[in-house]
């Protein structure tokens, strides 16, 4: 129950439905760029996804079309995925903070006690 196309554009372009299929070769769709978008001035750019593009300029254009269609963006960066260095999730213990590293935390500095004791000592 196949029908004749109802799309005037399809009919105009006389597309052949039985033609041999094209086969896209490797890299036909190019490499990818990672996209970083800033929602307003003053905040960090945030990674929002990636785009396939032949070069940086096209990547910026595609990133704008893909990730900023509704005015939630004031600036975009793109960077080749292959230029990004990352850590591995399986090594995520490198981010663990040890309990004894209290010297990194502001709460571990208690000057008031010392000042109080000093005042008690000297006022006698």
């Amino acid at each position, binding site marked *: 129950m196949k029908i004749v196309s109802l799309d005037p554009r399809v009919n105009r372009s006389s597309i052949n439905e039985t033609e041999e299929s094209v086969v896209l070769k490797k890299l036909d769709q190019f*490499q*990818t760029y990672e996209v970083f978008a800033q929602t307003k001035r003053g905040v960090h750019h945030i990674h929002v996804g990636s785009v396939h593009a032949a070069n940086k300029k096209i990547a910026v254009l595609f990133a704008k079309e893909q990730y900023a*269609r509704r005015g939630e963006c004031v600036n975009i960066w793109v960077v080749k995925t292959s230029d990004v260095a990352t850590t591995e999730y399986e090594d995520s213990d490198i981010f663990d903070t040890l309990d004894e590293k209290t010297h990194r935390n502001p709460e571990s500095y208690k000057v008031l006690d010392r000042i109080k004791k000093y005042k008690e000592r000297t006022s006698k």
Partner: protein
Amino acid sequence: MYGNAYIDPKKANSSLVEGENPEKLAEFEARILRGEKIEPKDWMPAMYRKQLVRMIEQHAHSEIIGSLPEGTWITRAPGFRRKLALMAKVQDEVGHAQLLYNAAETLGKSREDMINDLISGKSKYSNVFNYPAKTWADSAVIAWLIDAGAIVNQLANSRGSYGPYCRALERICAEESFHLKYGHDNVVFLATGTSKQREMVQDALTRWWPPIMHFFGPSDKDSIHSETLMRWKVKMASNDDMRQQFLNMYVPKIWDLGLTLPDPNLKKNEETGKWDYTEPDWEEFKRVINGGGPCNAERLAVRRTAEENGQWVRKALLKETETYVTPLS
């Protein structure tokens, strides 16, 4: 069949975890149980990867093929504002496909392979798009109700376990609210218009109802893999549950407009709280999804031609030094 986990019926009896390292599997499942997401380079069972690739890829194809029946009406949309709105919607849908192709790519299938599998007919896409959009009212019904179905499915899947898919779906869901409102607006405009306009929208609704009932796919609650896929948060709700959710949300809205649906058995069962309906014709569904629908050949031919026509430009732009690495997410 939108972003529904697909189970190979021939392999119905094999286990999804056959040959997997039990320790790694336990770790993987514990992570999901804790509500953590799986990221691209994490260890994952081969079948988890396979099901997700198939599901996300089909979802991407559905977005891109789904823009074709609606795209038909861009040149003939009634009025400039509707033309602009429809162009924006179609651009969104193509954008959804890009996001989803990227998510599937992080699992190791190249974009070229996905496009090849689409235009050769190897990969599937949502069956509803093998039907034609005969009138402007069809485009309104599609934008309202097919998108509504897609939202039910996408919201469920956005709570799944695979990080890149969830992130893509979050962006997609945000845009769908415009599609839904745009579609509803168009249906309401026709339904509250002249008798001819009402007739047109009723006719479109009557024709689209069977494909809409097919939208979530056949019942899969008895599938032996469902339990594993749900534990892995690949499948987030049964096809029947999603269909029920859709009926519950939209049938009252359709009836509220004084429109009718071509199923005499359709009614909410006050006892069970669920909707009763005539079982959809799953033979028709199978026939159409396997290539026998009115528009299958045209949809693929349009897509194939687009790839063909653009190929010389891409070839001219391709640098010899180009290398491919998997996108980060």
